[in-house]
């Protein structure tokens, strides 16, 4: 399993060594969000709104402040007054005013669980008791949860300063529709009128949560001189720094953020909820303060993925060529504007050549927590609708669903929805791999059905900094600013080892704090192995050049007469020709030949490529109970090049199972009072080990020419196809097409027994 093996001429790339942080994580030594303790640290608690929509008339904190042990109480008024400023939040963008208001409400609460005030005290119990003593005078307002309800003329308005973006002329009235995105080409209506087959349908789902097992947590310590430290688990400590600095109006250099290990994020830990509040408490108390969410807080007040209402019409000619697609969808934005609609629009049908398209997406404000990125944000929802419709077309035409997809699949050079041509994508290769996979032709048992779906995600590059330095013994230290959520330290070490041609074990990898390495964007957007990896490779190449140059100077030959091979400099010319000098030897002498060997690369990586996936799913449906069991599952994906295949497979398997959960049982359930009814793992039903089979994987490798080893992002793609793959399998097992997720037993039963 883990024996290093040569692959495609690589020594280390493609092998499966143990991750550098592995032992810490299997022995309980690794420090996560709530594991860090600062001396003299206080414990915080947050008071949250019981109402989904209310005006805050007054907050009386006196009783809380009077409780012995309480050291600080803060409300939204403790934030500085802020001017609207759109800032990068993770890979998305938000108005800094909204970020601050989401941390602590100012004039209005916009969802049940919205933070209203916070306390720091000598114990968590005292902090919680004090929070309960804070008296908030609310004027309860009518609330709205549903997408279409929120767009109605008489709907309660969340913000009086949000005007629909993306429509012209610019509206003069505020609206719950925060954005509309429309793209398209050709004449959809004419093409549909002439199509041999047209399928249409409305698909729906409620928000779902990323479901990371570690709740949000941080410790902040703000000194009297204005300098501060934050220790937290996040997908990007530089984002924590910039958002905290901007919401508090202080210089970024005054905040040093130290990344702790992160217990899962999936896009949900790319913003701040607690850090600015812990900072405010710390400044008032003069001591470090820990704030941590409970599991209920996480469900009620962190950012789930949007639910959706999606209307689809797709037409094909008699040969199965898709002629037109119309997709009109609405996504929950939640309490504050989000921008996932445009990724939904761009990824809706971008994997097919369709001459006539009309793609419209809406972002809709409603009294739910502000939605946040969740693995390929905006793509799975619309993909579910489109890939379900494609399956229906295949059914109506009597075509093999893979053949239909192959017939219409985009290839390198074809335009994306944006008009920018696709680069070296591997979508057709994935479809062909699916067709060739034994799973596709395996016999099915009774009550079983096989579904297939394909999809893609654009991926990203972006800014990253990495340094590579040598110990005096020639061992290699890689330092990045990209938190390791899924084994990326191992990938970084592999790439550095490959460049320097040294054993993997000679390379160690550290995630440095914001004061110790240059800016790096969040670990998200499937960008770390691609973009931070590029920075590591650049820095390693600089170190290699330095080593060659140092060896040349030691030998007294020209640098051109030195080549680097097998972790050593080899002299190829002059009177030292044939001699070699190992990396350890050079490192030991380096300070006498120019100084320590170290290099840093700070890049803004472009050249990323989209990733495509095809998932095959077999389900068995108990028609008497509506129970759906996934009995076999295969995930096929173009990964460009797998640096550490275990962790690439792991992304594919984990994404697939998250998607299975989304398809079958996960859903936010709000009651009529606008309160979340299932804020825990008991009733927010993520898959458990006994719910799923092994997830077979096929890593298709169509290398990315713009990455030194061919990497494409892999983390997000695998959550795109599962919703439709499962639904298509259920449709084929039962003969009934279901349009509303999740496909929970009661719904499947109702669909199979319309008589009641």
């Amino acid at each position, binding site marked *: 399993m883990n024996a290093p093996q040569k692959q495609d001429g690589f020594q280390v790339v493609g092998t499966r060594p143990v991750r550098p942080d592995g032992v810490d994580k299997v022995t309980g030594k690794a420090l996560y969000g709530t594991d860090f303790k600062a001396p003299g640290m206080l414990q915080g608690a947050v008071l949250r709104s019981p109402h989904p929509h209310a005006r805050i008339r007054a907050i009386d904190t006196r009783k809380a402040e009077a409780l012995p042990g309480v050291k600080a109480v803060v409300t939204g008024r403790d934030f500085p007054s802020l001017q609207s400023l*759109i800032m990068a939040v993770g*890979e998305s963008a938000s108005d800094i005013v909204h970020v601050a208001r989401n941390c602590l409400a100012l004039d209005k609460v916009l969802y049940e669980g919205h933070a209203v005030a916070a306390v720091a005290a000598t114990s968590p119990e005292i902090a919680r008791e004090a929070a309960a003593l804070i008296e908030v005078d609310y004027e309860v307002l009518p609330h709205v949860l549903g997408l279409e309800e929120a767009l109605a003329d008489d709907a309660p308005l969340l913000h009086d300063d949000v005007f629909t973006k993306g429509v012209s002329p610019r509206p003069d009235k505020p609206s719950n529709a925060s954005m509309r*995105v429309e*793209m398209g080409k050709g004449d959809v209506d004419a093409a549909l009128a002439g199509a041999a087959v047209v399928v249409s349908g409305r698909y729906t789902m409620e928000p779902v949560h990323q479901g990371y097992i570690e709740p949000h947590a941080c410790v902040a310590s703000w000194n009297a001189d204005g300098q501060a430290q934050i220790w937290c688990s996040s997908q990007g400590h530089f984002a924590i720094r910039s958002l905290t600095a901007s919401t508090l109006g202080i210089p970024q250099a005054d905040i040093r953020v130290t990344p702790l290990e992160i217990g899962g994020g999936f896009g949900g830990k790319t913003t701040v909820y607690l850090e600015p509040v812990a900072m405010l408490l710390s400044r008032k108390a003069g001591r470090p303060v820990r704030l941590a969410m409970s599991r209920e807080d996480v469900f009620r007040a962190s950012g789930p993925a949007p639910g959706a209402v999606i209307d689809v019409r797709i037409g094909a000619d008699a040969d199965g060529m898709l002629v037109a697609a119309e997709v009109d969808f609405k996504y929950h934005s939640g309490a504050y504007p989000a921008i996932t609609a445009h990724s939904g*629009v761009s990824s809706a049908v971008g994997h097919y050549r369709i001459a006539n398209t009309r793609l419209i997406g809406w972002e809709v404000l409603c009294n739910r927590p502000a939605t946040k990125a969740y693995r390929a944000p905006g793509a799975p929802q619309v993909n579910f609708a489109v890939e379900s419709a494609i399956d229906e077309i295949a059914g109506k035409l009597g075509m093999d669903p893979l053949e239909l997809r192959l017939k219409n699949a985009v290839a390198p050079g074809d335009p994306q929805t*944006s008009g920018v041509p696709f680069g070296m994508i591997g979508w057709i290769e994935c479809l062909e791999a699916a067709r060739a996979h034994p799973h596709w032709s395996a016999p099915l048992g009774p009550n079983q059905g096989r579904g297939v779906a394909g999809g893609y995600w654009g991926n990203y590059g972006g800014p990253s900094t990495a340094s590579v330095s040598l110990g005096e013994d020639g061992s290699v230290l890689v330092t990045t600013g990209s938190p390791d959520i899924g084994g990326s330290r191992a990938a970084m070490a592999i790439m550095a080892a490959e460049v320097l041609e040294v054993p993997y074990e000679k390379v160690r990898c550290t995630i440095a704090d914001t004061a110790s390495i240059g800016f790096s964007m969040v670990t998200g957007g499937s960008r770390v192995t691609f973009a931070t990896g590029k920075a590591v490779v650049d820095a390693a190449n600089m170190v290699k050049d330095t080593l060659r140059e140092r060896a040349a100077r030691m030998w007294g030959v020209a640098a051109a007469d030195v080549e680097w091979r097998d972790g050593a400099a080899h002299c190829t010319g002059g009177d030292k020709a044939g001699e070699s000098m190992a990396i350890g030897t050079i490192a030991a002498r380096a300070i006498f030949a120019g100084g320590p060997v170290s290099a840093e690369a700070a890049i803004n990586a472009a050249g990323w490529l989209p990733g495509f996936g095809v998932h095959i799913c077999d389900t068995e449906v108990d028609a008497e109970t509506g129970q759906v069991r996934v009995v076999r599952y295969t995930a096929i994906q173009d990964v460009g090049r797998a640096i550490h295949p275990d962790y690439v497979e792991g992304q594919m398997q984990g994404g697939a199972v998250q998607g299975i959960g989304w398809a079958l049982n996960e859903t936010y359930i709000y009651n009529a009072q606008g309160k979340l009814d299932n804020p825990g793992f008991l009733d927010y039903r993520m898959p458990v080990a006994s719910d799923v089979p092994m997830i077979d994987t096929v890593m298709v490798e169509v290398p990315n020419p713009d990455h030194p080893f061919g990497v494409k992002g892999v983390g997000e793609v695998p959550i795109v196809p599962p919703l439709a793959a499962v639904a298509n399998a259920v449709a084929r097992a039962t003969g009934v097409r279901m349009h509303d997720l999740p496909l929970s037993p009661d719904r499947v039963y109702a669909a199979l027994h319309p008589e009641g």
Partner: protein
Amino acid sequence: MRIVIMPPFDREFFGTDRLDLAATNLFDLVGQLDALAPGFATIAQVRATFAIDGVVTHDWASPLANVTEVILLPRVGGG
């Protein structure tokens, strides 16, 4: 040089999806676009991506001589 403006920026800022402008580089172009639609420059830094003759770039300083088309498209957020 043709400037193709993808949604939502077309309607959000410019009222059109095509412009014809000459610019030395993307900084210059963004400056010109900001003059047409004040506020665009700030937004561009956090929400926009540019493709020059079909290739997405992060280097706003690279010269636009001999370029025929720049596509302005929304940056897609990831998880």
